[in-house]
């Protein structure tokens, strides 16, 4: 069953008119084993819904390119991108210098945050003051921001 109603899909398509460059959505999800291991089914209870949601979102614009990676502990591609938990999404576009990532299922209000991030990454034009840019240009170390949210 589709997660996004036709009405919501139309709203999202309007938002996606602002997309300029192509965006790669690297999605990392649990490797689905053909074996059912008792007690292990719920390793990643939100992985499947997140995957379905991203598939439906990516289908709404030809500028969005979803790449699905089923990973297990120690996967090379997960290590390459520094992914240590799933579900995880990395948004990549030309002109984006750092990394923009999302961990978990973007539900409720966070869904609009995700859509906004996709537009920002696609446009790759940071809306920051001159003072902020000066501070960033003078950075002498790496910065890791983690913003913790809950679905509301």
């Amino acid at each position, binding site marked *: 069953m589709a997660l996004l109603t036709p009405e919501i899909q139309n709203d999202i398509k309007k938002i996606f008119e602002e997309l300029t460059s192509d965006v790669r959505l690297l999605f990392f999800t649990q490797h689905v084993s053909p074996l059912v291991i008792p007690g292990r089914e719920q390793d990643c*209870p*939100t992985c499947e819904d997140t995957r379905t949601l991203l598939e439906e979102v990516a289908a709404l614009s030809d500028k969005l390119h979803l790449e699905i990676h089923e990973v297990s502990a120690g996967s090379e591609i997960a290590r390459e991108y*520094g992914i240590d*938990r799933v579900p995880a999404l990395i948004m990549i576009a030309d*002109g*984006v*210098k*750092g*990394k*923009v*990532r*999302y*961990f*978990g*299922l*973007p*539900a409720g209000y*966070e869904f609009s*945050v995700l859509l906004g*991030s996709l537009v*920002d*990454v696609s446009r*790759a*034009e*940071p809306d*920051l*003051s001159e*003072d*902020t*840019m000066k*501070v*960033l*240009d003078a*950075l002498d*170390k*790496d*910065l*890791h*921001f*983690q*913003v*913790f*949210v*809950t*679905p509301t």
Partner: protein
Amino acid sequence: MAIANPRIVADVVEVSEFPDLAQRYMVRGVPKTVINDGVEFLGNVPEETFVAHIQQA
């Protein structure tokens, strides 16, 4: 900011799905921002305040 600078990794984390992180960073309210495991603050803050936090990190 992560769009503008190669030294920045910006993560949004649905904390209800990752209780180990909630515990590790003592997340009792959201949005909570942690910079480099050291500086932390609660709520949405103006850009200048965020930058001030960066300078403490």
